[in-house]
């Protein structure tokens, strides 16, 4: 095992990683920008090195500074956490070049899975379902219609050069194809000077289901079950849970096997996540792989009793997985809520500031991961997530109720957070039934905010 590693991150994930290092007797070197001098990860680490000014590009994304700090402080490995340099293939290469273990897959694997087209092709070859579509571009509306017939309506027409919704049309039936194709192509030509078009199956209101996998250097790959991350706002996950209400045992087995296949196909090493969309009929399609630890990994830890950071460190040190797929056991139900310092009533504007009175929930089945402390400063330079509340219960209902009471106990003074919104979501009938998809927040946000406002007015009146 490593003697000393550098943690190339900040906030709760840096704290999360150094906790496990501490437990394994691995010395930790934290890095920090000048804005983070008093941050918790700096205080808890064995050593800390300032790597630059507040702007992330100059500090937490500063590959040279971080590698210099690792080399200069005698570290054997770098844990990149999530975000920042965690999926930066060049950084992984650079680490390798300098004899430092990058705790994650090789640069080439990151590169391969980071290229959507290449990843799609690789997955197809490995027999993992991908969103059906045309093989490359289609010449005209007729060819597009033929593809659409083959894969089934509705479909999405996408400009090869497209982006931001331009040159894109949803087509729900054959009769709309000619007109939609013409319109999308014209838009693509006028916007991008390129009229090449693709056809892809349109998955309406899918679930976002991801599988956690672990792959060691001996080629063993296991999955640790799924996480349902469909409660999102603009692709930012807010609530994650496991097991998902949308999976049958059979589907779970199938998707788990597909996830293991996917990891094997790309020669994966370490902890990774295979993301799928799942439609109402139980069809699932690979969309991408996250080649790093994820924010929501504690959900899986609560169910399996494993420490995923420990497994990452063991794998990176060349040790084999200490268990087989059959030995992975799942107990109960787990839910995570991300507490972001954002004001839901002001379009989720981040709300940096000074943390005032702080009180975290505790007790049976409750875990808190956070880098906050009473009086800590929330810098405007970085992510607005300030804490993760994770609960475990014997049943989904117990977990939901436990999450409610945990959110009721939580007190973060100094700035608004999304805690109350998350609390309201746990009362929504669709959430309670587990009957939700990625459109949930879009559909219900307005209503939830109105309830919240009404509550506030009522409270003031009661005072």
């Amino acid at each position, binding site marked *: 095992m490593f003697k000393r590693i550098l943690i190339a991150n900040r906030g709760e994930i840096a704290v999360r990683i150094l906790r496990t290092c501490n437990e394994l007797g691995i010395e930790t070197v934290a890095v920090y920008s000048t804005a983070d001098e008093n941050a918790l990860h700096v205080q808890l680490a064995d050593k800390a090195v300032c790597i630059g000014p507040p702007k992330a590009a100059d500090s937490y994304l500063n590959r040279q500074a971080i590698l210099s700090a690792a080399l200069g402080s005698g570290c054997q490995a770098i844990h990149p956490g999530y975000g920042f340099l965690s999926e930066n293939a060049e950084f992984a290469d650079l680490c390798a070049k300098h004899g430092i273990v990058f705790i994650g897959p090789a640069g080439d694997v990151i590169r391969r899975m980071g290229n959507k087209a290449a990843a799609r092709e690789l997955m197809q070859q490995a027999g993992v379902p991908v969103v059906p579509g045309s093989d490359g571009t289609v010449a005209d509306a007729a060819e597009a219609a033929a593809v659409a017939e083959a894969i089934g309506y509705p479909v999405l027409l996408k400009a090869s050069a497209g982006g931001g919704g331009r040159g894109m049309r949803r087509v729900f039936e054959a009769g709309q194809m000619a007109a939609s194709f013409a319109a999308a192509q014209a838009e693509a030509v006028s916007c991008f000077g390129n009229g090449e078009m693709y056809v892809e199956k349109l998955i309406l209101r899918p679930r976002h289901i991801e599988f956690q996998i672990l792959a060691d250097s001996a080629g063993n790959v296991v999955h640790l079950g799924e996480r349902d991350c469909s409660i999102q706002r603009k692709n930012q996950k807010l609530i994650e849970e496991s097991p998902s209400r949308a999976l049958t045992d059979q589907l779970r087995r199938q998707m788990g096997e597909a996830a293991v296949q996917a990891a094997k196909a790309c020669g994966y090493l370490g902890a990774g996540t295979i993301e799928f969309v799942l439609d109402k009929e139980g069809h699932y399609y690979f969309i991408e792989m996250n080649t790093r630890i994820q924010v929501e990994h504690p959900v899986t830890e609560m169910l399996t009793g494993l420490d995923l950071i420990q497994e990452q460190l063991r794998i990176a040190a060349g040790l084999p997985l200490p268990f087989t797929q059959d030995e992975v056991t799942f107990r109960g139900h787990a839910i995570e809520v991300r507490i972001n310092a954002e004001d839901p009533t002001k379009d989720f504007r981040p709300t940096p*500031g*000074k*943390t*005032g*009175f702080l*009180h975290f929930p505790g007790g049976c089945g409750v875990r808190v991961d956070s880098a906050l402390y*009473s*009086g800590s400063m929330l810098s405007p330079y970085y992510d607005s997530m300030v804490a993760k509340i994770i609960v475990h219960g014997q049943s989904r209902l117990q977990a939901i109720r436990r999450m*409610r009471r945990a*959110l*009721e*106990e*939580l*007190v973060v*003074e*100094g700035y608004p957070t999304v*805690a*109350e919104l998350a*609390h*309201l979501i*746990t*009362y929504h009938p669709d959430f309670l039934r587990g009957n939700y998809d990625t459109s949930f927040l879009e559909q219900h946000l307005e209503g939830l905010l109105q*309830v919240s406002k009404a*509550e*506030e007015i009522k*409270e003031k009146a009661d*005072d």
Partner: protein
Amino acid sequence: MNQQELQALMQSFEATTLTRLEYEENGVRLVLERAAWPQGPANPAAFLPIAAAPAAAAAIPASAIAAAPSPANSAASSSANAAAPASGSYIKAPVVGTFYAAPSPESAPFVTVGSSVKKGDIVCILEAMKMINEVPAPCDCMIEEVLLADGALAGFDDGLFRIREL
């Protein structure tokens, strides 16, 4: 500037890292100041859980149980309970029990607002476990306010009546 404006200013000041604000205009003068490392601590009074959602039972401050706080805690909770009287003495509950203003449902109450009583006169009953505890007036006094509804639970030391000593 009124009291609410002052409160709002204090709050805004609190949200910053400023250590001093000085303001003067047309004979109005205001100074806010604090020590260099303030570390927003933990005034227990400021500690309240987030509001519970519609279906959840709201966390109710203890003072909401008995309609009136005793004088001992009225200073501490005056902003939380605007109804708290600012002055006057109280007859307080010597035991926990259910408050009855009259000896029986058919009877007239022992006292009403405006009643003058002598020290030792019974002013109400606190029923605890089928036992009747008669509460005597602690001094000669005039009843200014009856603080509990008939049948409400009185906690230990809760105010029962606001009185004026005679």
